[in-house]
């Protein structure tokens, strides 16, 4: 098996466990990627680690909205995500993008919920063009 390509899923599982145990993973991960000549996959590996973390009860969610979110809204979203995915802890990364016009977009590893006005307008336009 030496020399066989290690799947990203296995790498992510290992590093997710290390993170949850409190150890620093940045240097070891970077070192592995350079050694195995897999620097191209770095973005995907990080996504895979986030996915592995969500499987282990820690959810990282990206929230995008057109205006700054209030603490209440963030709490609502956190509660919603906990009930929808069954994880124990949720970390939110927020982003403000005025071009979304309104509403909110939630992205977790492997899923997405897009309630922004921009997306709703895009869907409407697509329906019109296919009709």
């Amino acid at each position, binding site marked *: 098996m030496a020399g066989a390509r290690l799947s990203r899923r296995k790498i992510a599982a290992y590093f997710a466990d290390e993170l949850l145990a409190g150890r620093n993973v940045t240097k070891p991960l970077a070192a592995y990627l350079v050694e195995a000549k897999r620097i191209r996959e770095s973005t*995907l590996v990080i996504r895979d680690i986030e996915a592995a973390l969500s499987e282990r009860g820690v959810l990282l969610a990206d929230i995008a909205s057109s205006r700054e979110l209030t603490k209440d*809204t963030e709490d609502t979203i956190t509660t919603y995500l906990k009930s929808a995915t069954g994880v124990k802890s949720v970390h939110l990364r927020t982003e403000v993008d005025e071009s979304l016009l309104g509403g909110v977009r939630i992205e977790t590893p492997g899923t*997405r919920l897009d309630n922004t*006005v921009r997306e709703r307008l895009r869907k409407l336009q697509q329906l019109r063009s296919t009709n």
Partner: protein
Amino acid sequence: MPELSVTDLSKELRSAIQSLEVTGDLESVGIVTRVGDGVAWVYGLRSAGYSEVLQIETRDGVVEAFALNLNEDEIGAVLLGGDESVSAGNKVTLKGTVLDVPVGEELLGRVVDPLGKPLDGGPAIKTKERGLVEREAIGVLGRKHVHEPMMTGIVAIDAMFPIGRGQRELIIGDRQTGKTAIAIDTMINQGRQKTGVVNIYVAIGQKLSKIARLVERLKEEGVMDQTIIVATGPSDPASLLYLAPYAATAMGEYFRDNKKHALIIYDDLTKHAVAYRQMSLLLRRPPGREAFPGDVFYLHSRLLERSAKLSDSLGAGSLTALPIIETQAGDISAYIPTNVISITDGQIFMETDLFNQGIRPAISAGLSVSRVGGDAQTKSVKSVGSHLKLGLSQFRELASFAQFGSDLDEATKSQIERGQRLTELLKQHQYSPMGVWEQVASIYAVNNGSFDKVSIAKIKEAQTALLTRLWTDHKKEMQELTKGDEKIADDSASAKIIDKVAKAVAKGFEE
């Protein structure tokens, strides 16, 4: 689409901005990492199932694909359609279903692509039901043995290698030997004899000009309204060529499961195997013999097992399959031909030599076989056809002695002469399938010796004259004969009539 007033729109916008309510569900989403050669590799979508339909959101709308490679780190999805608009970074969602196609009577008379989109310029296909493209074949208990005839109208086949409803009979031969012609004549015969059998013709990678000519010919013969054509050209993506037979089988299963009978022609499965090989190699699956993937047998076996005769409790419908395979230089022991021969219930072997000699249809009586045989043959044809095969095989053995001419004994000479007349009789023009009484009368006349004095070159003329005279003078008896239930023994009434007329006609063509 009703026009949205400006006030409505601003009201919606305002309420959307004010209420940052979370509505809806988190949907699974993946992302395209690379795309090319008709395959999109997708990151994410860990819950995707095998053969599940994926929807890729491109700038030109939604492009569908189906997931065939479920790897640990990514999914290999085959695109249904062009890969021009798909690019890396596109979001991918699950449709939640496997592939299905519209099925039903609304498809009759139409030319469609494997996804059910019309190709004949007519209105969009709207059906009440949809059928699964991939479906398990009926189990043992749901079947009945093949006992009803599927008349092709071609004397050589109906007499010597009869096909029954629910059988799979392979048509195999080199290029340009008349394989498609047999299939077309069978379809035309269903119209002529008003059998009520629905025809489905699947063109897999066939030249579009050939398909167009076929549609015109079927329209001319008045058979198009009971025919469905599923067409894919050589320039269509390999995924569509791969799906075409399965989609068409789903359409045929609709009729089979609803107490009706259908005939499906796969033209041809060699191109189908080649398209599947292309897809498999691009999905990076390991190549096997002749670079075909390891499951190329399963590719055809699961397709052909769906053609069956159902038991009475399931409605007694049937789906008969006529797959076509093209061989190279007559080699029927190559990989794909041997695979399909072992799956089907017999084969009709077309030979280039016979074709070039002018024996058309160029059916090799020695190598062709029908493993269902007697049960599925019309009784009257069976009673006259049993001697036909024997006579021809004996003739084949002695054929090389024919050149000795006068040096032979009488028995050998007469056998050779009879064989030559039978061979001449079995020649048939394209697009002229023959009904039951015509076949019975012709074979009986020659087998009985009535045409023994007719010169070989004039046999076909004599046959035409016989049939014309029988139809004008004895129409009622011939119509009775067409029902097919009568066994033609030498002393039966019809036999005597045929004999009398044949001898009378023969006098005009004696050498």
